[in-house]
């Protein structure tokens, strides 16, 4: 990186570089681009297509089930062809909703401290809820083999 070190502006002007490190202040304070915006944007689109396909599968599957009582649903989820898409659905859905809610928080929570805390709690809540849902599906699916009964 080329750093401008020779600037001597009039008194009171903010220096282009930190005199001690030779680094622009914006870079020291971390106020520049994180260079991860495109990745977040792309993951939002990628997960949206996954969520779309998996929810079409879920809705069609549930409408085709003869009964939606406890027995009907758990027997259906014991089939790997139902349990695996359901696990993928949970992963894709909570990944997608975490990113979507985070963008809303970034837009409307202006105070830096509150924003950091809200995003922290949002990430914990999304991962925690996804973990419970994943565990529930795994428990139902493995009960078929007599492992978790």
């Amino acid at each position: 990186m080329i750093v401008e070190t020779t600037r001597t502006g009039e008194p009171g002007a903010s220096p282009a570089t930190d005199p001690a490190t030779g680094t622009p202040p914006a870079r020291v304070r971390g106020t520049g681009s994180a260079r991860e915006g495109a990745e977040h944007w792309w993951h939002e689109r990628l997960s949206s297509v996954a969520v779309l396909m998996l929810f079409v599968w879920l809705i069609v599957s549930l409408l085709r089930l003869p009964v939606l009582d406890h027995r009907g649903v758990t027997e259906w989820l014991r089939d790997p062809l139902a349990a695996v898409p359901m696990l993928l659905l949970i992963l894709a859905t909570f990944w997608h909703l975490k990113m979507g809610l985070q963008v809303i928080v970034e837009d409307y929570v202006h105070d830096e401290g509150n924003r950091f805390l809200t995003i922290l709690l949002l990430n914990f809540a999304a991962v925690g809820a996804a973990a419970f849902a994943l565990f529930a599906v795994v428990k139902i699916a493995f009960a078929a083999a007599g492992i978790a009964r």
Partner: protein
Amino acid sequence: MSRNPNRPLSPHLGVYKWGPHMLVSILHRVTGAGLATVGAAALVWWLVAAASGEEAYEGFAGWATSWLGIAIAVGLSWAFFQHLLSGLRHLVMDIGAGFEIRGNKFWATMTLAGSILLTAALWLYIVMVRGA
């Protein structure tokens, strides 16, 4: 945050004329937030109840088939279809297409009509065919 009062502010939402494209854009966020909170909670409750046994599942089913539960389910299904259709519209706009004002407004209106149509079709199917 400090602001120089001599500098003009950019006009806020209130000054714009409402149109279908503006409504759909806001609805995408509103429905997304609703699905991400109420919808996700319902999904986790359903799965955990199913894994916990018959009694817990009856508890969930009792709520889900109450009038309040059905009202929430209808609302969630509409939110799902609206978010799905406006999401597809966003994917088209992401490739740089559909920005001409007439086409943009037309497809925004179509997502609104489509979500109501799909919601009605889903619940008609549930009531008429499944008899639930």
